[in-house]
């Protein structure tokens, strides 16, 4: 199982990008994904699904994730999630 060991961020607040903050999360809790998006109604579920998929690829079962989406396409969102996770699982 992958482990987020420290708080990490990736991405920007620019249009078509997403800003991700990931942190270890509380003991005994699972995935806590907070989502803000300019297209929340239209794509909120799709964004959440992509975030969960990337977390799963890294076998991360416990983390707190905050996503501020500025209309990022899936491939951008995936990239930002992956970058944040890689930064977060890296030991100091």
């Amino acid at each position: 199982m992958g482990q987020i060991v420290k708080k990490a961020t990736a991405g920007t607040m620019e249009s078509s990008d997403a800003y991700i903050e990931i942190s270890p999360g509380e003991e005994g809790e699972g995935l806590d994904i907070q989502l803000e998006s300019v297209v929340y109604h239209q794509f909120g579920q799709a964004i959440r699904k992509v975030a969960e998929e990337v977390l799963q690829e890294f076998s991360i079962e416990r983390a707190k994730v905050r996503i501020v989406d500025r209309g990022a396409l899936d491939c951008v969102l995936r990239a930002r999630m992956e970058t944040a996770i890689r930064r977060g699982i890296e030991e100091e």
Partner: protein
Amino acid sequence: MRRSMLFLPGNTPNMIIHGDSLGADAIILDLEDAVAPDEKDAARILVRNALQYQDFGRCETIVRINGLDTSEWQLDLQTLCPLQPDFIMPPKVGSAEDILKIDHYLSQLETQLHLPPNAVGLIALLETALGIENAFAIASASSRVKALFLGGEDLTADLHCQRTAKGEEIRYARSRLVCAARAAGIDAYDTPFTDVNDDEGIWEDAQFARSLGFTGKAAISPRHVKAINQVFSPSEKEIAYAYEIMEVIQAAKEQGRGAVSLRGKMIDAPIVERAKQTIAMAQALQEIGGSNYV
């Protein structure tokens, strides 16, 4: 057909996702100078995903990797070669040894990734005095090297001179690079025109580059793409002349004549070759509707 090559910063989604809409024949996804040192990982992953999921249509993709003097370039290649961009552009190539170093690493990577040998082609970016002086050796160091590309900004810094709009200071480097590339039988691409707001200057600069023999030219601004495309497209006169040559050649062949001339000028093999290239380009342009903007 690669008239224009547009640099796009590798960590800027808003630019990358629109890469195919900006009119350039090729885009250069930049992991080097356009990316801050602590965002190298982010850009690498973003560019990888863009290549994986985005359809860039008829637009070729080139990835500028980080320099051989960094700890990033191998990681860049590992991450991006599986997606098979059209070319990899290594920066600050100074010698044939630099090419051989990359070549060696790529060969290993190709085996690992089950890619055919020499699948990954290179466009070598020459932007140091040493690189210019070694241009022919670099061009002929490996069959992977498909083109030389001049980087005027870093070069002028290395030459201890000012980069100007007129470009007198890089005239020698331009000619030397074209000559080396042509001697090795590969293409040559010119440095970007750097004044984004000078809409006239780009025309002159591109026309001058074409007159020296460059195949095409890079741009750092989408505003320059149209001018570059127009300057490096064959003119109607050139196309008509090319067809005329092919007709004369055909007629000579049918009549079994060896030496051919057109209006008193001998038509030899290199002229025929150029005519063929011109016609191929004219046909490619026709396919995209003769359009310089979409």
